[in-house]
């Protein structure tokens, strides 16, 4: 019997045989004969702003990570892959359906509360992630921990993907830069499970125990999240992986039926090695980095509506994306896959306002004219707490790294206040190259 994955692969409607244009040679000749033309005005403006020392640093990091002499050290500058906001794709997204965009709108935030946070800077280790060399071993080990039979793994895509199918459970593994992601799922319907409901605490303990057996890395506190749906439906327990005592964006998810039967488990398998110790900004100073780092796309906003009158609210599920109408009053949510909740370490801050860029050009999708300048009504955010974690980032040299991150929590001051979190890479800005994640219209 074919697994779900195999049936999906088998449902590919594409006619057999590779695609080949009728006259490929002519097509290519026509393309290369096209004048390259001048860059768009928005891009020109961006390049002009990059003049001087910043541009020099940018050039040094064109290949990803390059050593520069900054504040008396030779630490490599950390360049980010353009995964969060991609200038080229943003350009084309401008003409596309707005609800499919993945852009961070230019939002004129004013952050209150920085004065309540610690002003002590420090240092933190940056870690480089390493994927396991043997994906089959990872999958087999996971199945062994879960005590399920997933059959024999079959390699696809030159070993980048593995699938397997057993009598009751099937498995899949995908290799990525820096880690492997795996999933083992029950082939049967979740609704078929019957029996007495399992106590949540026991699911929590079971998930933690399973996660412990998966690998030798430290684990954080398990978080139980009922899967939306009918009462008595499945429950997901997330167990974050800790590095150096800090939670990370990576971890394990276990989905149990109401009777405690395992429905599915997913997780990341990786090892880390210490890259270097970097100077970090203080939590208070980090507030000033929120806006420059918006392109890193770690805003999590329950709901924002500046006078829209819309009353709906609700947090975006982790990993999901809320479409971005991009009207300057609404915010794209691009949340890390695993929201790791940590208790705020500081609260009750005085109303200190952190300076913020006051005027932005509209984001791609709101206007095709890069010369139009729109003043966005300031959106005030009262920050009430900050916690730390290691965030997962894909770098411009295609490595995956864990970087120290401040997670600010606060309230968007509005007619209908909503909770929000903003994340900032805590590494001193002089060691960060944000070029690839900046919106060209910024």
């Amino acid at each position, binding site marked *: 019997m074919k697994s*779900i994955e195999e*049936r*999906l*692969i*088998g*449902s*590919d*409607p*594409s*006619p057999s045989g*590779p*695609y080949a*244009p*009728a006259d*490929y040679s002519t*097509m*290519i000749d026509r*393309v*290369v004969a*096209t004048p390259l033309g001048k860059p768009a005005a928005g891009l020109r403006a961006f390049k002009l702003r990059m003049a001087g020392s910043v541009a020099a640093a940018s050039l040094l990091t064109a290949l990803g990570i390059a050593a520069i002499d900054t504040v008396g050290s030779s630490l490599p500058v950390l360049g980010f892959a353009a*995964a*969060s*906001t*991609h*200038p*080229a*794709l943003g350009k*084309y*997204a401008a*003409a*596309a359906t707005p609800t*499919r965009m*993945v852009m961070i709108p230019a939002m004129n935030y004013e952050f209150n509360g920085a004065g309540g946070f610690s002003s002590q800077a420090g240092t933190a280790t940056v870690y480089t992630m390493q994927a396991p060399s043997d994906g089959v071993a990872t999958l087999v080990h996971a199945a062994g921990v879960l005590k399920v039979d997933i059959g024999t793994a079959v390699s696809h*895509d030159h070993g*980048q*993907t593995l699938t397997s199918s057993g009598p009751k459970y099937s498995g*899949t593994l*995908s*290799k*990525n830069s820096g880690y492997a*992601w795996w*999933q083992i*799922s029950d082939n049967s*319907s979740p*609704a078929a499970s019957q029996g007495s409901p399992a106590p949540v605490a026991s699911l929590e303990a079971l998930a933690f125990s399973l996660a412990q057996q998966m690998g030798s890395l430290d684990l954080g506190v398990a978080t139980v999240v009922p899967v939306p749906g009918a009462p008595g439906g499945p429950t997901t327990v997330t167990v974050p992986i800790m590095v150096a005592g800090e939670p990370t964006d990576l971890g394990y998810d276990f*989905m149990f039926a109401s009777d405690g039967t395992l429905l*599915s488990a997913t997780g990341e398998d990786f090892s880390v090695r210490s890259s270097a110790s970097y100077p970090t900004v203080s939590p208070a100073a980090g507030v000033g980095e929120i806006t420059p780092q918006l392109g890193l*796309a770690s805003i999590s906003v329950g709901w924002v509506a500046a006078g829209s009158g819309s009353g709906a609210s609700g947090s975006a599920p982790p*990993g*999901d*994306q809320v479409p971005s109408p991009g009207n300057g009053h609404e915010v794209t949510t*691009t*949340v*890390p*896959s*695993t929201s790791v909740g940590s208790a705020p370490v500081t609260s009750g801050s005085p109303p200190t306002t952190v300076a913020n860029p006051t005027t932005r050009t509209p984001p791609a999708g709101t206007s095709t004219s890069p010369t139009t300048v729109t003043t966005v009504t300031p959106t005030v955010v009262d920050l009430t707490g900050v916690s730390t974690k290691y965030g*997962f980032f*894909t770098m411009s040299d*295609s490595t995956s790294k864990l970087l120290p991150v401040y997670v600010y929590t606060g309230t968007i001051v509005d007619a209908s206040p909503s909770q929000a979190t903003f994340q900032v890479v805590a590494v001193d800005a002089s060691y960060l190259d944000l070029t*690839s994640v900046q919106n060209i219209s910024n």
Partner: protein
Amino acid sequence: MASSRERRFRALADEATPPIGAYLRRRLYPLSPADLDDLVEEVLLVAWRRLDDIPAGAEIPWLIGVARNVLRNALRKQRRISLLQARLRPAAPDAAAEDYVIADEGVREALNSLNEDDREILFLHFWDGRNAGELGVILEVSSNAAAVRLSRALERFRRSFDVLAVE
């Protein structure tokens, strides 16, 4: 003599054209080969103009991301393009509709019950063979977020598939 830029582009085009064409062909059907070639050329034109912006090591997913946007525009203009091209060139024989239809009825119904985002990430992974890292580039999210979205889409697909199978 071709410039180094042109040589670089030609090498990239040789590598990227089949997967780009396959991506577009899977999503637009029935589509005449000429229309498909037009869309592929549009993607390659972007590649030519933005060659220096294409992330090393992620060229194909980056171009599939461009193809997604080209595809959206094409879908919006599909009717107008069809009318125009009907006058410009003789109609090319389309592939038989049966070639394109998803034969597995259970899979088709379960897919139809999903939203477009879920379908797209499943297709990108299971049809186009893109791993989580590449999905991250295409969808402009982190690899990890892409992996979780894929996982959830698969979970929703599985549930829908099971429910429909029971019915």
